[in-house]
């Protein structure tokens, strides 16, 4: 019997591709956000509201990741921004190769801000680097204030967190103070926004932050 010591990263191939995506984003001066959430947290609704506000101010584009259907891409296309749908056919997350392929279909010279809407899932997408500038985790008030403790990796890897559906807070048992405590325990530097994609409440704090980031980039 022989033992070979190799000490290699299991996801080295994905990491190499993510690095090359990151170089493209850097070269083209594109700020890229990877949006993570459970199914139904309101990622697409939040994105639609965000695109509406940013229209005419920032040049945006969207990569949509879904297990099946291009329903979300159709919703985004109504906002007249470049959009590419990736259908993973059962795959529970996007990876750097899928993003690399999608980039071939986008007008990279005309994009300042690229949103990647990952597959609805708080476990797997957290593990895969896509080459994004930052990961943004979205959760909704209907999901429970202990969610950060249940999905620590997603909240640890994200730099920003959006609490969506705050219009439902009076009807659900969600304590914003406890949620914040839990999220900051996992990631003390997490930047937290509270909003409702439905009523528009709080959305401008988030979009102002985006505009500021792009202007300073």
């Amino acid at each position, binding site marked *: *019997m*022989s033992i*070979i010591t190799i*000490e290699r990263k*299991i996801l080295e191939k994905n990491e190499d591709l993510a690095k090359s995506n990151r170089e493209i984003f850097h070269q083209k001066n594109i700020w890229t956000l990877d949006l993570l959430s459970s199914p139904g947290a309101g990622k697409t609704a939040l994105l639609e509201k965000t695109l509406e506000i940013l229209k005419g101010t920032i040049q945006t584009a969207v990569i949509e990741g879904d297990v099946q259907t291009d329903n979300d891409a159709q919703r985004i296309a109504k906002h007249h921004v470049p959009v590419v749908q990736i259908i993973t056919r059962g795959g529970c*997350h996007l990876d750097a190769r899928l993003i690399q392929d999608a980039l071939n279909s986008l007008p990279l010279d005309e994009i300042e801000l690229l949103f990647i809407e990952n597959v609805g899932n708080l476990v797997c997408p957290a*593990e895969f680097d896509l080459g994004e500038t930052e990961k943004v985790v979205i959760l909704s008030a209907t999901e429970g204030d202990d969610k950060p*403790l249940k999905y620590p*990796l997603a909240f640890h890897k994200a730099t920003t967190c959006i609490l969506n559906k705050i219009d439902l807070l009076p009807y659900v048992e969600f304590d914003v103070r406890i949620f914040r405590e839990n999220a900051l*325990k996992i990631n003390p530097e997490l930047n937290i926004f509270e909003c409702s994609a439905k009523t528009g409440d709080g959305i401008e704090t988030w979009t102002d932050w985006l505009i500021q980031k792009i202007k300073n980039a």
Partner: protein
Amino acid sequence: MHEMSIAQHIVELVENILSEHPGQTCRSVHLKIGELTAVVPESLTFAYQALTEDTPLASSSLTIESLPILAKCRDCNKVFSVQDFEFLCPHCSSHAIDIKQGEELHIEKLELVS
């Protein structure tokens, strides 16, 4: 179930390495998996078995070493173990900490037989 995708990456890496060692078969793949990754060892083992069934790797198995999360405080320089995902220095209560261990997803070594 990203364990399936991770298992695919492992199989691919092991197959590549084996191609450089003709005539040998793999008996065991040693992995180091940090506790900050959301990998469930049982699911990874299950996925690896499912993927290698009826292949030259069918007789190989995974040996998984879990690595606890260790961090170093930037204020008091002490290294500590992170309990319950609380990223706070237990010595000086600082939040300014760097992860030193726990994010690994590594293949460490292979055991080959002729």
